[in-house]
């Protein structure tokens, strides 16, 4: 099995990071996911996914200033790497291939 394959949840987390652009840090990603997918997302699964995406090299992170409300702990902003973008494109490609030709059934 390809260990660098994208899972469904990893896929949507990457998309949410791309949408948030420079503002992508964990609580914002969580809010974006819940807003766009209309489903509750658990914080635990998202942090584990961020760890995994970073291990796979699909995202990188940088520290930013700690706010007053964070007990002196820095924010960690994430952005999608070139490898991550490439993976997303490939994933979109394969999904498009699968979608093509199903309009007649799905639009009924």
């Amino acid at each position, binding site marked *: 099995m390809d260990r660098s394959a994208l899972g469904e949840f990893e896929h949507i987390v990457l998309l949410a990071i791309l949408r948030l652009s420079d503002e992508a840090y964990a609580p914002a990603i969580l809010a974006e996911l819940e807003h766009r997918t209309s489903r509750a997302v658990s*914080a635990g699964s998202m942090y584990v996914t961020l760890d995994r995406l970073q291990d796979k090299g699909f995202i990188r992170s940088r520290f930013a200033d700690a706010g007053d409300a964070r007990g002196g*702990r820095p924010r960690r902003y994430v952005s999608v790497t070139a490898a991550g973008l490439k993976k997303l494109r490939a994933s979109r490609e394969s999904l498009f291939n699968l979608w093509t030709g199903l309009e007649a059934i799905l639009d009924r």
Partner: protein
Amino acid sequence: LTGEPPGIAEWIVRTAAAESAFGSSLVGDLCEGYERRGRQSRAGAEWWYWRQAISIGFHFGLSRIARPGIVRDTAYAARRLIEAPLFTGVVVITLALGIGANTAILQLIDNFYLRKLPVPSPDRIVGIYSIDARLRSENPLGGGEFSSADVFRRLQRANLRGLTSLASYSMEHVQGSGDLGGDPLWSAVISGAYFETLGITAQRGRLIRGDEADSPGDSPVVVISDRLWREKFGADEGVVGRAVGIGRGTFTIIGVAPSNFTGLHPEGRTDIWIPGGMVAVATNAAATAKHANPVVIFGRLAKAAPTASVQADCDNFVRDLAESDVRAFQHFGLLVHVRDRLTSYEASPTGVHLFVVLWIMVALLHLAACTNVASLMLARASARRREIGIRLCLGASRGDILRLSLLEAALLALVGAMGGVLVARWLATLIGQMQFLSASIWTFDARMSALVAIVTALTIFQFGLLPALESARNEPLTIARGVPAAARRIRDRSEMVVVVQVAISVALLANAAAFVGLYRRQSTSDPGYDVSHTAVVRFSESGAVASHTDRDARHDSLVRQALRIPGVRLVSAAVGAPLFDTRWQGEVNVSGSQLAESPHETALQAIGPGYFATIGARISAGREFDDRDRASSKSARGDFDVAIVNEMLARRLFDGNALGKRIQLGRGKPATIVGVVRDMRDVSSVGDVPRAYFPLLESTFDEFDLIIRTSGEDKSEADRIRQSMGRGGDGAPPIVRTLAEVRDGPMSMSRATGTGLTGAAAIALFLMAIGIFGIVSIAAARRRGELAIRIALGAPTRTVHALLLKAIGRLIGFGAIVGVVCAFAIIQLERSWLGPVLAPEPLSSGIAAGGLLLVIGIAGFVPSRRATRRPPADVLRSV
């Protein structure tokens, strides 16, 4: 600002995310979210934080377990265990036995007391119990004008608004024939709405309908239990429609009950359900006879109806009854309880106590076995110290080492748990063969799996954690160099194991000695009457609602009939044999005085003329009841004119001089004391208790046993009585038991517990012996060079023995003190259940102490002797 997030939740977050790249920012993110939510509501923010903490703890915990290293480590641990098959085998068998035995006992407790009945909405099933309002307790004898069957019939006509349906059952032993031949079947004789009230459906065929159950004599249908279907019919799919013989009738099997339903009766699994109208046919009794066994009434609450509303309806019903017939129902009451389980602590506290004693015993044994396994694991940890040292030097964290050791323990426990399930199943089958425990059924469901998992987790904790911590504590460089720096600590741990084992053995031995002592006292003490040549006759068919005159006439006729039997010397009647705990207790007070604030509970018994002469008890003053002591009319029944008290009650109420004084039962009419009898002991409570006796023929009891004194051999006389008394009656032959047999019933509790505890103590001693053997062997091996030099220089052998055994003497002494303290505490606890009769007894305690010393001596001496017998030169060459 809202302040800090909840401390424990924050700790969970920090610990769980410690290895995450997002660790510190994650804590900050949550802090930020907490602050934001806290501005609106502090409670809301805390609730949110806790949810996040649990989610993060769960996900990071899972991801840590699932990481690749764990698979490699598990495979490594499994390989190491396979390489040591003897060690693995011994440990797995020990754990399987322990886990299995604990699971089986906990399952019994669960089945009887915790598990809900396997019916829809069991919380809505309520029991309605007849009580004697005067005694303020359930009257198990069902005495009085009212019978439970009669009460049920009246209740059916009453308007109990809180119930959607009302049903009843009574238990009867019936004899099957043909496919159902063999042992008598335990049968539930049910009223129409029985299955409808429970809301269950048949697994095959159908269940008995209301119209079938209530129409007398014309619905010969039967529902059989799942067990009977499997055992007698080999789970034949075509069983429905088959004809079987029960009693003197032929019944058609219409269905098989659900497999998880063993009936509502806790004292034994129900085999068959038959319609109430068919009871006479099934029990082989005359059609006119009314079955005497008490009827248990239950109903289903309407949705949202509280139990209190049914109780209020029942109270109104009782009030109406009392108004309609003051004499018959003046002491009658009804009690409504939720009946969602097989039984409850309130219904059967003794059962809970016995189960708990049994479980403590098994748990202690399991603990002893686990300490031995821990000792073996410690020895393995010591053997692996070089490997662990190298791992630590190469950068393995202490957590990794701990995990590796715990994995090995977890693997052993997992295999042990699988074996444990098999052992538990086997034990459950054995337990199911005991009639009074057969209502418990073995089911391997989520609940059982959780039980096994909990027992297994505790087991791992008991035997795995200590050696694992020991491994992880090693100093890397010293042990990698092969310096046994941890050897001393490992020896210390082994010594602790021996202390625990000695303590457990002493506790079990002392407990066993107390129960064996109790049995010895029970079997040898003078109960205050003559056990030999006395038989108790119990009639199964007696007409529970016979009228007062019938009762007296029947008494006189039965006494005359018994006296005609050759070899019979004296005959009397009583409610309950002298050795039975009749459970009839009440408040007896000096007549005319105010009711005491805390009145004495007195054991009560209703007895016929000549009772004390028949059982060979001595009257110390006055006379016993005779033919004069009978109610003059129906209206006078229940009001006692005369009474007899035992010496203890006489002392308590009148300083011993009781003759001619008057006592009062509850708020009843005063009765004159005409006799004082010597204190007698029923076996269930060997200590003397205050007792009062009232004339059976003045009482409202319709049921009674005949007590017969014979001159010949007990056993053959009993057979002769059974044959003679059965002839001419319209019911089944009576049950005749000798008084010695009756006594053996309650005595079997102390005998069985004593035997069980002695067996458990023997196993504990064996385990302890292995522990001591190991310690002395290790000491002898470690000091073999020094000992060889001493022997070579001419030290006497006994000095060498003393050197080796001195060290364990201290441990054994300490363990024994801990054990005695534990034993004292356990026996105190058991005394609070069983009464002061349970006490250490010199002879059994002496034998137990002797046995303990002997085992310790052998276990210590054998390895010590082996160490001194090897020629010193050989030993020194090998050091």
